């Protein structure tokens, strides 16, 4: 049973072979992660849920074609990122806006105004690229190599980009203090 995230290569293999229980466990753990990722990128709650649902469908449809079960996590986040890019194309949105109170649930507004207000505001002011990089590295704790696979850049370029994104977040955070 895939009660851990990320699933082991064996679990990925079982899911790819059609084990519905393993697949269900993978989705149950992965879905909230993608919702959070999209919320962090500025989508409204219902948009994040809908788009994460599309990711779940893509994972089910595409898992049997994954060549390296060990690379599941990078593949999973690539799927999530591609859906996000497609979403933006559909909406013809070229600029990101910070997560605003209008797009949040009431309980989120209260929470953001309190404990997480400063980090939410600083993170929301970053560019979309910086937000994705920091999320994958600091929140999902992916390796530089995995992130390089996802963003289709070299590991060196990814490492530099993440370092700069960290610095920008730190600067913004201090400015808001």
């Amino acid at each position, binding site marked *: 049973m895939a009660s851990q995230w990320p699933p082991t290569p064996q679990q990925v293999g079982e899911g790819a072979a059609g084990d519905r229980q393993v697949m269900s466990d993978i989705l149950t753990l992965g879905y909230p992660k993608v*919702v959070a990722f999209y919320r962090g990128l500025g989508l409204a709650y219902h948009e994040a849920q809908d788009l994460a649902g599309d990711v779940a469908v893509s994972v089910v*449809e595409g898992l049997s074609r994954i060549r390296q079960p060990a690379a599941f996590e990078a593949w999973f986040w690539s799927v999530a990122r591609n859906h996000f890019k497609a979403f933006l194309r559909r909406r013809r949105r070229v600029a990101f806006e910070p997560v605003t109170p209008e797009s949040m649930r009431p309980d989120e507004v209260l929470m953001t105004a309190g404990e997480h207000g400063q980090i939410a505001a600083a993170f929301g002011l970053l560019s979309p690229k910086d937000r994705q990089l920091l999320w994958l590295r600091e929140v999902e704790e992916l390796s530089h190599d995995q992130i390089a696979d996802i963003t289709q850049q070299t590991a060196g370029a990814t490492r530099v980009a993440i370092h700069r994104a960290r610095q920008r977040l730190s600067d913004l955070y201090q400015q808001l203090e």
Partner: protein
Amino acid sequence: MSDLFENLRRYASSLGEVDDLVTHRATARALATQPVPHRWRSRLAPVAAAVALSVVGNAALVMTADSAVPGDLLYSIDRAGEEIADWLGSEADHRTERLVEAYELAALGDQEGALALAREALSGVFEETNLPVVVSNEKDTGLLLELAKDVVTAAHTGDSDAVQEAAHRLRDQAQVIADQSKPDNPGNQDNTPADTRPGGDGDSNNNSSGNGDKDKDK
């Protein structure tokens, strides 16, 4: 700097708090698209292609109907699509879908229809005939739906103790509401013997669609 990223992780964690019901529904919908294993796929490919060509025109209609609730023109198409999916071996989570529809109907003010759908959602997990047929206010309906959600969520986990516990809470609350409604509305007496209602066996999910139509008509 480490505090900064610790704050970011806590913030991220708060953004990932998703209702179990929402997660179950997304998971069930995704699993409904799970491809047939390869060995069958190769044999069935020509047949599947022919079927796909013949149904492609209807597919969009069924997809559109998926979000319909009882009373909508497309609802019967939604249910027919589910029955066909069941027949083809899909294990889509109709329980969760019925419950979501129940919430939607309750929000539209149809308390009786909402309870009928909740009864379907609970079919086979809980003695659904214990639910009152009619309640006097939205608050009671909302309370029963929340407790029904707990039963369905517990059923998803496969934990029989949790199912029993959640069912116990639902049964108690349903009894309280039924008792409260008796003195004020003697007409409810006719509805109380739920075992006389059509389709009250609750042995199979496949029976649920028929029950729901009867409930709606009632």
